């Protein structure tokens, strides 16, 4: 029983977070690319802002990845 939980908990930690982050990143990149095509002269600034915003979203996934690794290390 305990082994099942130790396999399930990291999986259930990381998978919903990855799905949520995928939606957030879709929104970010969609908006940024739309802005870039609309105004190509501000494309470098938008690209920088897009990378930073994506990094902030990604950090949340990585917190969950660290938690999942900590749980998985206990197997």
């Amino acid at each position, binding site marked *: 029983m305990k082994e099942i939980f130790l396999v399930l908990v990291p999986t259930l930690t990381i998978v919903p977070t990855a799905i949520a982050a995928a939606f957030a990143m879709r929104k970010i990149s969609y908006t940024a690319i739309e802005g870039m095509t609309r105004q190509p002269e501000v494309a470098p600034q938008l690209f920088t802002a897009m990378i930073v915003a994506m*990094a902030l979203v990604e950090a949340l996934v990585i917190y969950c990845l660290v938690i999942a690794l900590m749980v998985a290390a206990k197997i």
Partner: protein
Amino acid sequence: MSEIVQHYLPYIIIFNFTLVAVVLIVLGIVATHRKLEEVPDPIQNVAEFALEWFVRRARAIHPDGVTVIAPFLASLFLFILFSNLLAAVSFPIIRIPPTSYYGGTLTLALIAMFGTTFISAKFMGARGAIKHLFWPNPLQLVTKVSDTLSLSLRLFGNIGGEFLVVLLVVKAAPYGIPLVIHTLGLIPAFIQPLVFTLLTSNFLAEAVHTDKKKAEVDIQTSPPFSAVAEGKGAHGS
């Protein structure tokens, strides 16, 4: 990873960091001890492009701080980039990137945060730098700690996760497929140093920022009130 490698992992990380530092120093000596041309050849062109990017960012943070801020950001960027690229070297010990170990990334994040504080102390005085930690909000000290954690965890998660995936895939399918995973792993290896440097420069701009400078810039860039009232803004016509 075998037992022996696991046991000596901290020493391997230190060795790899030293290796990266030596490679960077040698590259720097080679790049600067050659005849610089008016019309640059490809190597000089790439070096000048990279340098110019950092100089522009440093000038945006503080106009007088180019000689301090640009080398700080550039050395962080190059060090992390070359550490990440060690994963692509297929040599038994050297192929472990030091940034896939939490101690290594925490060290880099601490260097970035302490460097930020010291540079802000250089421009605003020690009192100004300490005041920035507590004023206007005492929770800024907590922000410093959480920023350090998030910087180090982001780098560790990306590079370490990629490295872990490669190890697992090699166990499952030893030939062919790991090459694809390795190639995909080169993307975060280039993006992550960029993100690290960008965030560090954002923290730096926040710490060095003075109200007086911002007020001057606002006055220079914003159109006079009468022009706005008549519908002839800065972007008018």
